[in-house]
C-alpha cells in the first residue's frame, strides 16, 4: 500500500504536453528577438527599405508575437488544468481501488 500503482499513461501525456508548451514559452522570446533584429539588415548599404514596409513588418510581428504569447499561455493554463484534473482523477481512482 505504501507504493501505489504507477500513474496512468495519459497523465504522463498531459505532463509531457505541458512541458513542451513551456518549452515553447521559452522559445518565443528568442523568436521575437530574431524577428526584431531583422531591421539591422535594413540599414546595411544596398536597397533601402521603405517606411511603410518597415511599419507593416514590425507591427505585424508585434501583433503576431503578442497573440501567440497569449495563445501559448492559454494553452499552458489549459494543460495545467487538465494535468491537475487527470492527477486528481487518478488519485481518486487509486484511493477507491484500495
Amino acid at each position, binding site marked *: 500500500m505504501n507504493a501505489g500503482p504507477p500513474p496512468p499513461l495519459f497523465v504522463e501525456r498531459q505532463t509531457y504536453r505541458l512541458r513542451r508548451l513551456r518549452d515553447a514559452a521559452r522559445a518565443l522570446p528568442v523568436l521575437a528577438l530574431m524577428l526584431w533584429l531583422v531591421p539591422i539588415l535594413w540599414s546595411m548599404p544596398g536597397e533601402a527599405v521603405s517606411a511603410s514596409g518597415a*511599419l507593416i513588418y514590425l507591427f505585424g510581428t*508585434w501583433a503576431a508575437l503578442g497573440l501567440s*504569447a497569449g495563445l501559448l499561455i492559454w494553452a499552458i493554463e489549459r494543460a495545467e488544468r487538465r494535468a491537475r484534473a487527470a492527477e486528481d482523477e487518478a488519485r481518486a481512482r487509486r484511493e477507491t481501488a484500495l
Partner: protein
Amino acid sequence: MITTNALAAIALTYVMFLFTVAFVAERAARRGHVDWLRAPIVYTLSLSIYCTAWTFYGAVGSAVRGGFEYLTIYLGPSLVMIGWFWGLRKLVRIGRAQRITSIADLISSRYGKSNLLGVGVTLLAVIGTTPYIALQLQSVTLSVDVFAHPESDGSNQLMTAFWVAAGLSLFTVIFGTRNLDANERHHGVVMAIAVEAVVKLFALLAVGVFVVWGLMGGVSEALARVDASALGQWDVQGGRWVGLTMLSAAAFLCLPRMFQVMVVENDSDAQLRLAAWAFPLYMGLMSLFIVPIAVAGLDLLPAGANPDLFVLTVPLSQGQEGLAVLSFLGGFSSATSMVIVAAIALSTMVSNHIVMPVWLHLRRDAASFSGDVRHVVLLSRRLSIMGVLLLGYVYYALSGGGAALSAIGLVSFTGLAQILPALLGGIFWRGATRSGALAGIGIGFAIWMYALFLPSFGEGVILSRAVFETGPFGIAALHPHALFGLGGLDPLMHAVLWSLSLNTIAFFVASMVSFPSPIERLQGAQFVNADLAATGRRGWSGAAAQSEDLMVMAQRILGAREAQALFLREARKQGVSGLLPDPTPQFLEVLERELAGSVGAATAHAMVGQIVGSMRVSVEDLMAVADETAQMMEYSARLEAQSQELTRTARQLREANDKLTRLSVQKDAFLSQISHELRTPMTSIRAFSEIMRDSDALDPGQRAKYASIIHDETLRLTRLLDDLLDLSVLENGQVNLNIRRERLSDLLDRAVAAAAADEMGACIRIDRSTIAEQVVLETDVDRLGQVFINLIANARKYCDARDPALTITVTEDAGGLVIDFIDNGAGVSTEAQDVIFEKFSRVGDQKAGGAGLGLAICRQIMARLGGDIRYLPGQGGAAFRVIVPAALEQAAE
C-alpha cells in the same frame, strides 16, 4: 480657444475623478473586496506607467528626430514580457516570497541584507529618476502652454510645474502612505493608474485615428504619405537599434517605478500571465500611430514647431479642441501616473534604506523604545515623497526646462540599467556576492555619471568645456565621450557600452574572488532556488531574545492587531499556549520577513538584531545549512527517509514484540488449559484405580462401576489427545485433503447419524430441506462431515429448549454454498460469540463433555477447505453458518 483656466478646471476635475477612483478602490480593499482590485487586467494596465509623458509626447518627437528608433523603447519591454517564462516569473515570485519592497530592497536583501548596497541603489535610483520626474513636470507645463498665449512667460510655467508637483505629492502621500501594509501594496494607486492607462491609450489612439482617417484619408493613403515624407526611408543605425532595445529591456526591469508595479504590487502568477501577452499588445497600440502623427505634424505645422508636442498641436491646428483636450488628459495621465509611482517607489527606498537606518542608529535602543514606530516610518515616507517631488521640481526649475531634458529619458534608463547585472546575477547565479554587486554597480554608476549624466547638462555646465575638448587634465583616454580611446561612437551608446560592460566584468570578477558571508549565501540560495526553497533561511541564533520586546516592536511596525495575529499564529505553530511564541530562529525569520514587508529587509534585520542582541550569525551555526541548498535539501530528504525508515522499523519491531507477547500469553493459557484437561480425567483414574487396588471389600457391582469410570475417563483422555493432535495438524497446515465427490444430503445423513450415536445430550428433532441438499460437493467430505457432526452434536448438547429442534438450511450464493445450522435454544450470549471459536472455550456447563476444542477445529477445517464458519447472531437460537467455497461445488446432475 480653450482658456488656461478652463483647462485647469478640466485637469482638476480629472484629478478629482482619480482621487475618487483611488478612494473607492482603497475602501474596497479595506473591506476585503480585493478580487477585482487584483484582477490581472488591472495589473497589466498598471504596467503602462512605463509609457510616461516622455513616450506619450516624446515618441513623436523622437520619430521626427530619429526616425524609427523610437520603436526600440517599446520593443525592449515587449521582449521582456514575452519572455516572462525566463526571468520575470522568477523575479515576481521572489518578490512575493521575500516580501520585497523595492529594487533597492531586492538587491540589499539578496546580498546579505547589506544596507550599503541598499543605500547605493537608492541613490542611483534617486539620481536617475529625479530628472525623469522633472521631465514629466516639464511636459505637463509645456502642454498647458500650448493652450495658453504663445507669449506667456516662464514664471507661469514654473507656477504650473509647482502646483502639479504639489498636487501629485498630495495624492501620493494620501494614497501611497495610507497604511503600512506588510505587503506594501497600494490598491488605490494601482487602480488609479490603471484608469490613467486606459485614458492615455484612448487619447493617443483617438489622435492617431483622427490623423490616419480624418486627415490622411485611410491606411493606404497614410502609408503613402509616410513613404513620401522625411521619414520615408529606414535609416536606423544597426548598433543603436540593438543597443536601445537592450537598454530599454534592461530599464524595464530596473526602473524603480516598474519594479514597484511589476514585482511589489504583484500578488499572483495569473496577473503576470495576462500581462505577458496583453502588455506587448498595449505597447504596440501605443506606438502604432506615432509615425503618422509625426508625418502629419511635419506636413501641417510650421517648420520649427516643437515635435514633442505634435500629439497636441496637430489636432489643435485642425480646430479639434475636444481631441486636443483628450490628448492633453492623456499626456497628463502619463505624467502623473509615472510621478506618483516613482515617488512611492523612491520614498519607500529612501525611507527604508536611508532614513530608518539613520534614525535607528541615532537611538540605539529605538526598537524597544515605547511609542509607535509606524508613525516614524509613515512620516519618513511622506517626507520622502515630498522630498522626491521637490527634488524633481528643483531640477526642473534649475535646468530651465531646456532641450537637455528631452534626452534625459535614455540617460535615466542607462543609469538604472546599472542595477541589471547585480539583479540578474542575484537571481540566477549563486556565486554572485555583495562585493561583486558593489563593485559592478559602483563602477557602472561612476562611468554613467562621468560619461553620460554629467555631460547631459551640456558642455560647461558641470564638466568644463575643456574636458570635452581634450579630456580631463588633457588626458585624452579619459574623454567622456571617448573613454580609453574608443572614439567615434554615439555618446549614448558609448556610455552604455562602457558602463554596462565594465559593470558586468567588475561584478563577475569581484564575485569570483570574494567569499560571501553566511547570510549572503543563505539569501543567495533562497533567491536562486526560489522555486525550491520556500523555507530554510536561518539567520538568528536568538537565545537572548525576549518575545515580549519583539511583540512591542512588531506592534509598533505592523500595528497591534496584525502583530498579535502573527504572534498568536506562530505561537500555535510552536504549540505554545499563550500569545508569545518562543524566540526560535524560525519565528525570528518569519517575524523579520513580515517586518521587511513594512520597512525593508535591512532595516527589519537591524531592528530584530537590536532586540535579539546578536547581529552576527555564527559561521559554525550556518555552515551546515549555508553550504549548498541542494545538498542541504538532499541531506534533509535523506534524513527524513531514514527517520521514516526508523519509524517504520520501530513500528514493525513493536508489532512483532506485541505479537510475541500475545503468543506467549496464549501459549501459557493453552498449556494451563491442557494441563487442566489432562489432569481432571487422570484424577478420577488414579483415585479409582487406587481404590480398587487398596480395598478388598468391594462388592462386584462397585468394582464394575469403578472400572467403567476408569474406562470412560481413559476414552476421554484419548479423545482429548486426538482433538489436540487434529488441531495441531490443522493449524500447522500439514493436513492432506482427501478430495472426493459426495452429495450433500448423503453427507448430512451420515453426520446426523454419527452425532446421534453419541449417547450424551438430549434427543433433538432435525429439520432438513432435502431438495436443496441435492448438491454434489467436491471437497474433503470427511473433514466437512466432521464439522457437521460437531455442529449437530453441539446443538444436542447445548440446546436448552423444551422441545429442541435443529433446522439445517442450504442456499447457494455468489460466495458458494451456504449451510446454516439453527437451533431453537437460548443461543450464545453476545460476549461469548467472540470467543466460541477459540480453543478451550466452553459455553455453559462443563459437564457437556468435550474439552472445548470442537469449534476451534471446525474453524481450522473450514479455513483449510477455503470456506468459512461463523456464528449468525439474531436467529432466535444458536446459529452457525458454514460456507463451502463455490470452486469446490458442482450443480446436481
